[in-house]
C-alpha cells in the first residue's frame, strides 16, 4: 500500500487516489500546429526507472490534483505538492 502525504488531507492510502500519469509532460500552446509536439505530449514518455514526478487525483478526499515524487524502482515516496498553479 502506497501512502501519499496529501498537502490538504495528510497521510492517506493510495486507494483514495487515482493515478494521472507523468507530470513532466507539458501541453503545447493551443496554437502550436506542429504534429510532433502534440505527438510527444499525448504519446511519448520518458518512463524512467527511478525518480518519477506524477499526477495523482485525491478523488475520495479533497479532490485536488497533486504532483507526487515517487521512485518507480522501489515505490519510495518523496514530496507531494498541489498541481494547481503550476501552469500546464
Amino acid at each position, binding site marked *: *500500500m*502506497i501512502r501519499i502525504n496529501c498537502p490538504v488531507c495528510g497521510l492517506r*492510502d*493510495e*486507494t483514495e487516489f*487515482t*493515478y494521472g*500519469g*507523468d507530470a513532466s509532460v507539458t501541453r503545447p500552446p493551443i496554437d502550436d500546429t506542429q*504534429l*510532433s509536439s502534440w*505527438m*510527444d505530449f*499525448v*504519446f*511519448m*514518455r*520518458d*518512463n*524512467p*526507472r527511478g525518480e*518519477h514526478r*506524477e499526477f495523482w487525483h485525491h478523488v475520495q478526499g479533497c479532490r485536488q490534483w497533486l504532483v507526487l515524487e*515517487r521512485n*518507480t*524502482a*522501489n*515505490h519510495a515516496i518523496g514530496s507531494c505538492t498541489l498541481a494547481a498553479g503550476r501552469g500546464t
Partner: protein
Amino acid sequence: MGKYSAFSVFRHALTGNRNWQRAWRDPEPKSAYDVVIVGAGGHGLATAYYLAKEHGIRNVAVIEKGWLGGGNTGRNTTIVRSNYMMPGNTRFYERSLRLWENLSHELNYNVMFSQRGQYGLCHSPAQMDAARRRGNIMRANGIDAQLLSREQVQARLPYIDYSQNARFPIHGSLYQGRAGTARHDAVAWGYARAADGQGVDIIQQCEVLGYLWENGNIVGVETTKGDIKAKKVALAVAGHTGHLAEKANLRLPIETHCLQAFVSEPLKPLVDTVISFGGAHFYISQSDKGGLVMGGDLDGYNSYAQRGGLPIVEHSLASAKALIPGVSRLRLLRHWAGVMDMSMDGSPFITKTPVDGLYLNGGWCYGGFKATPASGWCYAWTIAKDEPHEDNAEFTLDRFERGYQIDEKGAGPQPNAH
C-alpha cells in the same frame, strides 16, 4: 543433442536417468555475431529459433542479464487465445495460435499446450452485443468463436454464481474452443533447446550496459562479459524496453507498469477451462498441479518493482469470489508481480527503429505470452528481411504519428487502462 521420445524416456529409465545430456550449451560469447538478441525470454528465444530455422541465420547470440525465462515468461498466467478484432491484431494472434497447435511437435519438447477453451463472460445485454460483434469479426477471419447463452454457460460452468443476488448476473459468453493454456517455463526451455540445436549461443548472466556505435548506427552491445559486435541488435526485453531504448536515445510510447498474479493452494479439478470475468478485470484457470491461477488489474501506476500492492490483491480476490463463491475459503499459495511494457494503445511493437542496426520487440502489455510463437516468427522475418511480414506490418512505432493506433479496448492513450 538427443531427440526426446517415449523410447528415450524408457531407455534412460533403465540407466537410472543418469545419462541425460544437458538441453542447451553454456558458451562464452564470441566477439561478433550476425544478430544479437537481447533478452532470453520466450520472445527472444523464439526469434533466435525462427531466424535459424526459417531464414538460415545461425550466427546468433541471445544474451540475458539473469537466467533464461526468468522475466515475464515465468510470471504470466499462461493463457493462450486469439479473440482479437482489430485489423493488425486479428491475423497476428491467429498465426500465433496456429503455431501453438503444433509447437510441442515442432520443438520436440512438451509445452503442455492444452486447448481447454476460454469463456469471456458477459453480464449485460450491451456486453452480449459487444461479444457478438467480436465473435462475428473473428469468424469472418476464420477464427473459431461461439456465442453462448446463459443456459449454455450454466450447463458447462455450473460452479459460478447464477443466483438472483449475483452482483454481475451471467447473460452469456463468447467462447473460443481452441484457446487454452500452456506450460510457460517449458515454452522458454523448448525454444532454448531447439535454438541451441540450430547453433544459437544462449549467454546467461550477461547484462547489456550500452551499445557500440559507428557513424550513428548501432553495431553491437557493451556487456558485462565484454563488447560483442553485431550486424543487427534486436531487443526482446518487454518490461524493460524503456530502459534499453533510453540508452539508444529513443523515447517510446510506453510506460512500465506492474501486474500481479496469484495461485491458490491446490485442489481437485474444478475449473477445467479458462474464464474471463466481464464484471471486473479478472481471469482464472487451474494448473495441472491443482492451483487456481488468477490475474487481475494493473496496480495502475508506473513501476519497475516486480512487487505489487495489497489493494489489487483484495480487488482480484473479491472478483474471484464474486464469480465463484465456492473459492471463498481457499488460501493463496503464492502471489507475485511482473513488469509490463504498457503501450499507449494496448498493442505491441515488432519493428525496425529509427536507429539503424536496432530492432524492437516490445510493448506487449498483458498479452505477451500467447503471442510468443508468432512474435518470434514475425520478428525473425523483420530482422532477416529488413521489412515486416504482413502479419506484423501494423506493429510499428510510427502508427501513433499516422493516427493508426490499434486500440482493442478503445481506452485511449492511457497505458494503465488497457
